[in-house]
């Protein structure tokens, strides 16, 4: 079996970190794009932080050398040929996505809001209405607080957090050179909003911008 990390146009996948379970990172190329994987006889794919960070380390290294479409964690195929077939069948879509993310990284921003309790509800429409209102409150807060960040990014994606929650989570596709100014803007927003808890993590691979073009 092979464990797949990413699809990339980087042609240098060697001399980088090892993959899950210390596996050697290899690549199979097809018409200018490569699928990056490691081979295993056995691999227990669980949400073990060691494995998660190993996956991200490989993705990060690839991002130093080209455009990268990171795969969702846990992508396993039968053999490299299966991966080559995917590169062949989906090549056009991958090339388009690669051009969208080229030169950029993903930055994650979260904002913690004050909570609100739903009241007692009379029926189905009331339930949906309340859920929708809560959703819109979150989006309004996101728009207001995080608006200054949008112009610094090539794209933005809203990430849903738990149902009925009081947290806003956004992803930003940011050119590498703009990462530090972006972080500085987040620090400024935090200073301007003492009642909120704002964080920024990254750089990550562009996970939120590669499947169906962003959520």
């Amino acid at each position, binding site marked *: 079996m092979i464990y797949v990390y990413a699809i990339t146009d980087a042609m240098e996948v060697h001399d980088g970190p090892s993959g899950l379970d210390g596996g050697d990172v290899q690549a199979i190329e097809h018409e200018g794009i490569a699928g990056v994987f490691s081979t295993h006889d056995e691999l227990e794919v669980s949400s073990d932080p060691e494995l*998660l960070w190993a996956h991200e380390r490989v993705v990060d290294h690839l991002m130093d050398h080209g455009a990268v479409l990171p795969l969702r964690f846990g992508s396993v195929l039968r053999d490299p040929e299966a991966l080559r077939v995917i590169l062949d069948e989906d090549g056009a879509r991958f090339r388009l996505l690669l051009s969208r993310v080229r030169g950029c990284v993903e930055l994650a921003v979260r904002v913690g809001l004050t909570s609100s309790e739903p009241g007692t509800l009379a029926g189905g429409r009331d339930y949906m209405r309340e859920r929708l209102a809560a959703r819109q409150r979150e989006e309004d807060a996101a728009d207001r607080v995080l608006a200054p960040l949008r112009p610094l990014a090539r794209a933005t994606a809203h990430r849903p957090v738990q149902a009925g929650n009081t947290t806003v989570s956004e992803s930003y596709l940011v050119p590498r050179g703009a990462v530090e100014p972006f972080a500085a803007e987040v620090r400024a927003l935090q200073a301007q909003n003492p009642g909120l808890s704002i964080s920024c993590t990254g750089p990550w691979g562009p996970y939120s911008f590669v499947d169906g073009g962003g959520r």
Partner: protein
Amino acid sequence: MSPHPRRTSPGPESRPPPRDSRPPSARLQKDIALIDLLDRLLDGGVVLAGDITLAVADVDLVYVGLRALVSSVAAAERQGVPLPR
């Protein structure tokens, strides 16, 4: 591909710490980094997976596209590659 010794890349630890006047809260940082990582790895990225349609009250809501393993077998068959049965 020539074999090479396994080693990790220099990594972000070699970068200077964030410019912040408060002392770093190591555990908080570790947890939020892991949570943001999980969020992306488990809910983002290119998906090589399955077809399900979920419906509630007769309203179709979710369609997730299923492909890779099925397509690799189908493509191999088209190309006349003998597959173990």
